[in-house]
């Protein structure tokens, strides 16, 4: 079918007849996949399998002692209140951060959509926080929230307000961590949602306007529903990434004060690289993965259900 159209084009007409017995779709393509497949297998799948294997052992990195415990590590973790606290805490941080990012992102994207001048420049400038090295971004924020000398504290002190200990108080530390994630990922939401809003069919919007819909109605009744698959996709992506959020927390609070901001990822890191309980840490990693998959499945089914295509 496609070959016929090509043959009719003048450039290739002459060479055609002799080779027609070997159509392009029968070409051998698997060699192209080979190098990447080898790398992905050896450095991605094999280590993952190894991690799952490790999770069945009581393996101490410092002493090298290793004993098979079956599901012992999993039973330990599931029976440990600390795991459940971490899980709930991670969930709370992820949901607040992603929720905040989505709301702020949508508001700004809608603003950009309605704006007619300077959109490109503003979009580019507000995007900067998203591509800064995460560790550097966390430091920038640390210097805002640092006690006494930080920018926020000096401003508040100037206004005569006694500032809370942003990074030292358990409650405020969680707020700070959420704000830090929001600072880095709201630009991402803005970019994706703004691009999405621009794909909405203009004739629908005009029809709604003729019917007397105002701006807010157009956004929530017409535009959002029509980019629903994109919203489902971006929320799922973001949730999954936020679940493994590590760099920023490591630099900002290292999970502290106490364990106020210790997410599952931080707890895994501490188990593996501070306490050297590699087996148990792997089990925790696997449990985190299961939690993420469950969350993603719920999200895709609830938001993406009505449309079969997800972006």
């Amino acid at each position: 079918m496609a070959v016929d159209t090509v043959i009719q084009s003048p450039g290739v007409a002459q060479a055609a007849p002799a080779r027609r017995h070997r159509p392009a779709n029968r070409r051998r393509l698997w060699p192209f996949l080979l190098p990447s497949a080898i790398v992905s297998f050896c450095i991605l799948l094999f280590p993952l399998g190894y991690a799952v294997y490790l999770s069945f052992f009581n393996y101490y990195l410092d002493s090298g002692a290793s004993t098979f415990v079956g599901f012992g590590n999993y039973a330990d973790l599931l029976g440990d209140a600390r795991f459940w606290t971490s899980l709930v805490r991670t969930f709370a941080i992820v949901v607040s951060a992603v929720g905040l990012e989505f709301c702020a992102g949508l508001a700004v994207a809608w603003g950009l959509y309605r704006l007619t001048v300077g959109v490109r420049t503003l979009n580019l400038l507000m995007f900067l926080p998203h591509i800064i090295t995460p560790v550097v971004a966390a430091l920038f924020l640390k210097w805002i929230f640092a006690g006494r000398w930080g920018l926020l504290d000096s401003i508040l002190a100037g206004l005569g307000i006694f500032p809370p200990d942003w990074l030292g108080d358990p409650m405020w530390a969680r707020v700070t961590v959420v704000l830090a994630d929001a600072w880095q990922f709201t630009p991402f939401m803005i970019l994706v949602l703004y691009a999405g809003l621009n794909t909405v069919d203009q004739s629908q919007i005009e029809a709604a306007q003729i019917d007397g819909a105002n701006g807010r109605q157009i956004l929530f009744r017409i535009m959002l529903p029509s980019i629903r698959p994109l919203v489902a996709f971006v929320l799922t992506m973001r949730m999954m990434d936020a679940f493994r959020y590590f760099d920023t927390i490591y630099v900002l609070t290292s999970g502290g004060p106490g364990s106020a901001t210790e997410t599952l990822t931080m707890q895994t890191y501490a188990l593996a690289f501070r306490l050297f309980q590699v087996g148990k840490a792997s089990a925790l990693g696997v449990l985190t993965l299961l939690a993420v998959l469950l969350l993603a499945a719920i999200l895709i089914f609830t938001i993406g259900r009505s449309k079969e295509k997800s972006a």
Partner: protein
Amino acid sequence: MNARAPRMSQALLFLALCLFTALMLTPVIWAFMTSIKQPVDAFAIPPKLVFAPTFEFHRQVWVEKGFAGFLVNSLVIAASTVLISVSIGTMAAYGLSRMRGRAAKGILFGLLSLRMFPHMLLAIPFFLLAKFLNLIDTYPAMVLALVAINQPFTIWLMHSFFVDVPAEIDEAAAIDGANEWQTFFRVVLPIVRPGLWVTALFSLLLAYNEFLFALVLTGPHTKTLPVAIAEYGGEDLNYWSLSAAAAIGIMIPIMVFMALMQRHLVRGLALGAVK
């Protein structure tokens, strides 16, 4: 175009968005100002907005504190990662984009789910394997780790470019007698060259920004900038100006990147570049 705001409220909207942008950029500007302030100005309360700038700390941190060396490590690792990752990823993406049937879709979906794995779960076996193979604190360990985690992204992004090239072009080349490899290298690859650049730059950024694996796999000889600044920064306020200078320096290549890539940001980021 009718959903755009009327002229009167345009000014208000513009003002509000400018304020938001300013708020988002405040931490960066504050850090930059800290990096060019004398300590006496940096710790002034209320914050000083007018002061005599000094670039002494920038010079000190890069020249005397060894950050130039960390920059070299970062660049060597990021560049090798991009070379390997983009070469093999591009080939795989081409193969997948030209395959028919369910297999290709299945592989692409599998890759996407690999991208979602918590990196922490990989860091543990990477560390143990690297230790076992005596590769801790060597470039190859870090490069291999980054190539592996870069593969899903590279393949997805390149795939999106190859899909845009009509299959008829390959078929025409095949009819002219080109084999699979000639078709790939001489016909299709030149067409997607812009996409290749975009993918390479995004992979470069990903490798440059990576922290967790660098924390676990590098040591004194191969330490990258993110690990160095995380160790250095934030701890002692005496180093505040110095680490601010380092942090600003680390950000400069990224700003260049952003200027180069502004048109391609959506495509790359929707697939999860950067973090």
